[in-house]
């Protein structure tokens, strides 16, 4: 062997597979069954190649090859026949998997599947052996169903046939690609045959063997087609002693360097000359022994660091060339062509297999990556972050050097996010939406790609990322609602790159995911904004707002609801209103301003409740919203007002009854009344008229107090005298059964400033109340106490007293402590108004059952006034 060959068995090949996981696959995953099989097959090919390169005899090598063939193809049997061209017979050189000893068996070359392969000069697959072959060459083939055969050629002639078969009883079929493998093995068999026949060229053969070994060795390492092609190029260079070599394959209608070994960079980028393009298309070989003087090559190719070139056709999923470049001028013999062709053929099966395998692998990796990107995008709810993530994902997905997302704004594409090195400042750049590439994706609403943009039309200003030294470009449109294109997702490669179909599909799929994620994020942002707005509104409205879901569970319980019901949102959420309030809010038929009483702790609260039902488009109830106000206070006021009206009515009607009644009575002509009687009747008419006037005055006072127009005319007043007179006047009709007034006035009571009329009104009211609520025979105390700058007057009774809650409200308008007592509920309200109008204060101290002490204070008149 000319140089040390990196060899590995299936075991360490698998390990190296894992170790050298291709950069574009970002996640670890277990080696699949298919990959295992691929590795196993490469291991077998490698083994076979080593056999051929070795020093063993032909028959032995062929026998070993059959063993490898059975393993590789999982065949039940395999055989190898060599052709005797003179006699037109085939002689069995090796056989495995047959009960009969076939080696040495001879049969006419026009029989069996071998005859088909010989006739065609290429591999043959037969599915129903019995039908395809009329006359079995040997009874040993009787049980076979599916059979493959590949010719073994050397020196331009078919020299034999390599066959493999499956027995009918197994019911199995060959795996896809089995025929390619068999052909590859047939290629190795050809080499072995060549080695046998040209033993004088041992060194050369060893070199060829090493080259083939290299193919197999390198094939067992990488899983990428590109590296396989590189390996094939290297093998060709090694086998022919070339300086460098390349595999040229058609892509997007052009011949590009798909695999290379030591090819100078300058040459790599150069457009292949027409002679190569045509040769590739026609499946011809090209030999140029002095390129420098060869008119078929353009200048760039004449001075590209080589002197001679040999190119043979290679089928790598499209018609291409395997080109070997030589440092010196060189004559090419038939052998060189043979060797190059053999290398091309040997590489072909592996290339095809790798291609199919890689397509499958990439598709799977892409879909896994896509699924991952879908998952990664899903929780991202910030549109800007989504764009950044999409760019990131696209770059990782395709193993691209850069990626960008541009969104359509008017008729411009604005770059929203980019991923990749050296891209500062590209975000925010704009390009016309009708522009080149990106614009195409928008206009066509379909993915676009270019393996090498530099070869295309000028694109100045078309794409900021592209301008940062990228050569390859692929883009897919980002969809919006109703099929509208919203933007473009693009990936870039620094070197020319033929984008695979699966990659473009994956990019389009990612763009689809991205569109959804972007739409979600925007929807979410809008919802979040609306939610924030409605939350702010809900938190600040005075009305209680409660929303329940379809199951009737509370999902909204705003601050006003907390305040009105006394239940914090934390307790209410997730429960039903009934559980929370012990009261159903739902009415069944909705409606507005229903009155609903609930309990806030011990207190009854009246709600004015409106209800709205939210429905799904299908009409199903999706939830309900309740809005309510606490109208307890309004209700109380309402009731007090209505009570007031009836009370006032009662208060007015009572004196009116007397006035009207006595007037009517006096008008009776049928009764003769005495003077005394008339006197009494008229006296009642007069006093009840006064009572009526007082009530009307009180109502006027209230109106003035409410309007703030009550006027007081304060003068200095001596309270000792004033109170004595007031008590004397009240004593007359007041306390029966031995009840009495007790005056307890300080010796020195300074004069106060007060309006005498209003003051009398206040004192009379307090005395009247005291009498009204005092039991018969009790004492009412009237006190006057001199305080600094004020005098306090107190009226104390021995009545039942008032409790604390009554004391709070006793000065309120319309409030009546005992509703069975006559009265308007205005007396104390007016008294309070009058006292404060005179610059004083009024209050009550009472214990239930212990009587009441009403006290008011009045400011002391100053010296000047007193004098």
């Amino acid at each position, binding site marked *: 062997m000319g140089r040390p060959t990196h060899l590995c068995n299936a075991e360490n090949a698998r390990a190296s597979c894992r170790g050298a996981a291709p950069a574009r696959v970002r996640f670890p995953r277990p080696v699949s069954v298919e990959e295992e099989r691929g590795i196993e097959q490469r291991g077998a090919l490698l083994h076979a190649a080593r056999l051929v390169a070795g020093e063993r005899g032909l028959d032995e090598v062929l026998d070993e090859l059959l063993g490898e063939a059975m393993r590789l193809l999982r065949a039940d049997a395999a055989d190898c026949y060599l052709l005797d061209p003179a006699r037109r017979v085939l002689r069995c050189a090796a056989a495995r998997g047959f009960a009969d000893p076939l080696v040495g068996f001879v049969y006419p070359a026009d029989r069996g599947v071998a005859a088909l392969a010989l006739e065609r000069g290429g591999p043959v697959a037969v599915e129903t052996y019995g039908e395809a072959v009329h006359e079995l060459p040997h009874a040993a083939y009787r049980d076979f169903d599916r059979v493959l055969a590949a010719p073994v050629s050397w020196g331009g002639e078919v020299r034999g046939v390599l066959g493999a078969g499956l027995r009918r009883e197994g019911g199995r079929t060959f795996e896809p690609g089995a025929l390619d493998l068999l052909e590859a093995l047939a290629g190795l068999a050809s080499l072995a045959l060549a080695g046998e026949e040209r033993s004088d060229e041992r060194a050369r053969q060893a070199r060829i063997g090493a080259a083939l070994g290299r193919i197999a060795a390198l094939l067992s390492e990488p899983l990428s087609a590109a590296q396989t092609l590189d390996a094939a190029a290297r093998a060709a260079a090694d086998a022919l002693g070339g300086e460098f070599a390349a595999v040229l394959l058609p892509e997007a209608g052009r011949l590009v360097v798909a695999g290379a070994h030591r090819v100078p960079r300058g040459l790599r980028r150069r457009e292949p000359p027409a002679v190569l393009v045509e040769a590739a298309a026609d499946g011809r070989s090209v030999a140029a022994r002095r390129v420098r003087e060869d008119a078929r090559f353009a200048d760039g190719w004449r001075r590209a660091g080589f002197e001679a070139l040999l190119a043979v056709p290679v089928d790598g999923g499209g018609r291409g060339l395997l080109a070997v470049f030589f440092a010196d001028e060189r004559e090419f013999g038939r052998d060189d062509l043979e060797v190059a062709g053999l290398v091309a053929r040997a590489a072909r099966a592996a290339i095809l297999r790798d291609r199919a395998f890689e397509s499958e692998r990439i598709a799977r990796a892409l879909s896994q990556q896509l699924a991952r990107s879908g998952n990664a995008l899903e929780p991202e709810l910030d549109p800007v972050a989504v764009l950044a993530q999409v760019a990131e994902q696209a770059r990782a997905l395709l193993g691209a050097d850069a990626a960008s997302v541009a969104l359509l704004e008017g008729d411009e594409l604005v770059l929203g996010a980019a991923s990749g090195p050296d891209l500062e400042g590209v975000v925010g750049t704009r390009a016309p939406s009708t522009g080149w590439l990106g614009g195409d994706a928008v206009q066509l609403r379909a993915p676009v790609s270019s393996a090498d943009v530099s070869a295309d039309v000028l694109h100045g200003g078309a794409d900021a990322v592209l301008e940062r030294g990228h050569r390859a470009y692929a883009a897919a449109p980002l969809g919006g609602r109703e099929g509208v294109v919203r933007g473009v997702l693009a990936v870039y490669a620094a070197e020319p790159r033929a984008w695979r179909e699966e990659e473009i599909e994956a990019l389009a799929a990612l763009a689809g995911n991205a569109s959804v994620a972007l739409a979600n994020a925007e929807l979410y942002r809008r919802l979040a904004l609306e939610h924030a707005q409605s939350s702010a509104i809900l938190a600040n409205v005075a009305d209680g707002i409660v929303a329940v879901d379809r199951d009737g569970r509370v999902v909204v319980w705003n601050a006003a609801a907390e305040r009105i019901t006394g239940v914090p949102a934390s307790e209410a959420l997730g429960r039903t209103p009934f559980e929370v309030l012990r009261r159903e809010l739902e009415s069944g038929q909705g409606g507005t301003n229903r009155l609903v009483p609930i309990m806030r702790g011990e207190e009854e609260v009246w709600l004015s409740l409106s209800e709205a039902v939210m429905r799904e488009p299908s009409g199903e109830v999706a939830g309900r919203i309740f809005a309510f106000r606490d109208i307890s206070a309004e209700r109380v006021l309402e009731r007090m007002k209505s009570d007031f009206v009836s009370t006032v009515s009662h208060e007015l009607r009572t004196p009116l*009854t007397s006035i*009207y009644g006595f007037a*009517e*009575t006096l008008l*009776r002509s*049928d*009764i003769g009344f005495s003077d005394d009687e008339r006197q009494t009747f008229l006296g*009642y008419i007069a006093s009840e008229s006064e009572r009526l006037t007082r009530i009307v005055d009180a109502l006027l006072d209230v109106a003035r107090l409410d309007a703030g127009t009550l006027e007081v005319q304060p003068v200095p007043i001596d309270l000792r005298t004033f109170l004595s007179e007031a008590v004397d006047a009240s004593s007359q009709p007041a306390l029966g059964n031995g009840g009495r007034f007790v005056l307890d006035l300080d010796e020195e009571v300074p004069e106060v400033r007060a309006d005498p009329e209003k003051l009398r009104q206040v004192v009379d009211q307090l005395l009247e109340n005291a009498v009204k609520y005092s039991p018969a025979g009790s004492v009412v105390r009237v006190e006057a106490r001199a305080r600094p700058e004020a005098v306090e007057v107190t009226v104390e009774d021995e009545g039942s007293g008032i409790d604390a809650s009554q004391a709070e409200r006793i000065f309120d308008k319309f409030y009546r402590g005992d509703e*069975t007592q006559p009265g308007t509920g205005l007396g104390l309200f007016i008294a309070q108004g009058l006292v404060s109008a005179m610059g004083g204060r009024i209050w009550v101290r009472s214990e239930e059952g212990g009587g009441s002490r009403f006290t008011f204070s009045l400011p002391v008149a100053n010296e000047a006034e007193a004098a």
Partner: protein
Amino acid sequence: MNGDAQARTKVLVIDDEAPIRLLCRVNLEAERMEVIEASDGPAGLEAAQAGLPDVILLDVMMPGLDGWQVAELLLGDERTRSIPIVFLTARAELRDRARGLDLGGVDYVTKPFNPIDLAPLVRGLLDRVARGEREELRQEKLAELRASMSR
């Protein structure tokens, strides 16, 4: 009973307002009726049980025991159950009048009233009661009320 036309009809007036009691007394006595007075609920109950009047004129708004309560007690008492009650009330709301009839009163008089109408009212009432139409009278009054309430 009606045949003995000149038998004195006894009317009990329960009202906390002295002028109104006097008004009733003067005008009923002028029609040859006997009037007894009570100035509050408890006194009224006592007078009803002791005097067994033919009719009771009962004020509603009184301190302590109010007219509603007095009526319930009177109608709940074997001795006074049969005495027709006429409410004298300054509470003009229909619902107040209805309440009186619901409690068992046979009629109501809204203050202010013309005292001259009192005696004919009492007389007519007693005629109906004598004919065993006390309940019919009450129902008539209720129907009247309902009619005015629904207007």
